[in-house]
């Protein structure tokens, strides 16, 4: 496997969306290739970072009240 092949699927690899056979190939390449190993770590860290920083915003209570009220009126 070439690094270019690895780069094209690294996100999907991290998603766990590649076939088992493919995952083994990617894992093998990663073990032998320092650059691709680092690349994988960076992608993973960046994704975790984004997820953490974009913490879910809960719906405000007044919206929940309003929704339930409007649904009951709509009935």
């Amino acid at each position, binding site marked *: 496997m070439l690094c270019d092949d690895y780069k094209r699927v690294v996100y999907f690899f991290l998603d766990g969306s*590649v*076939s088992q056979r493919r995952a083994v190939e990617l894992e093998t390449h990663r073990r032998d290739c320092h*650059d691709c190993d680092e690349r994988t770590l*960076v992608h993973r860290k*960046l994704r975790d970072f984004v997820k953490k920083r974009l913490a*879910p*915003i809960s719906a405000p209570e007044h919206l*929940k009240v309003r*929704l339930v009220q409007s649904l009951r009126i*709509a009935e």
Partner: protein
Amino acid sequence: MKTAEAYEHEQGWDFEKAAMPYVDSLYNTAYRMTRNSEDAEDLVQETYLKAYKYYDKFEEGTNFKAWLFKIMKNTFINNYRKKKLTPHKIDFSEIEESYERVIQKNAPDLIRDPESEIFQDMMDADVKRALDSLPHDYKMVVLLADIEGFSYKEIAEILDCPVGTVMSRLYRGRKMLERTLLDYARKYGYIRGEAEPAKMRSRKDEVKGRKKKDEKGEETDVQEPEESEEEVLFAEAEDEEFEFEVEEQEEERFEVE
């Protein structure tokens, strides 16, 4: 025998019970889509009322959360079309080119300390800004996949597009987001790396650049500025189909071959 009124009441109660648990999720995405709480609240309310109205159309046994998100997406597009907002535009070839150099150069810095956050001092606002800098279609798939945790197949259902398109947008969207974050990080000195200025070009610059490319007869990824804004933002984008063969295995799993 139930009266018609009692039946309707039951259905309403049923809907409320089924739909209210998703209000936080929907609001969160609505907020990221509209970028302000007032519009997000209106969008969620409109979504719930529409979903209630069409509740009998919902197919039992299919994904209710994805169905709600789909209604919200459609509602947003309709409202968006009315407002005719200007979409963000970005040159993909530009991103693609320098991204590899940037990530290669900064990798050791970024992974040195496994316990720390990558850019300790980067503000949440910067991350939000980076996300908002993505074209709408790319922002949506990143949000739905990485924040809401939907599968490719669910996202394809919500956005009414093929799974290959979801993957293609995810690939590009994530890359653009990472690239923008790395640009910010370097600009504010959180990571070292040579000064390679952030090249998120303005729409005007981009159109200029595109014309130049066209004269040389080269192909470009940039969408036609002549297209109407809605088309640019919500285009099915056949040309961006991801080149991997996507193989469906089991129900929810997609395999990249």
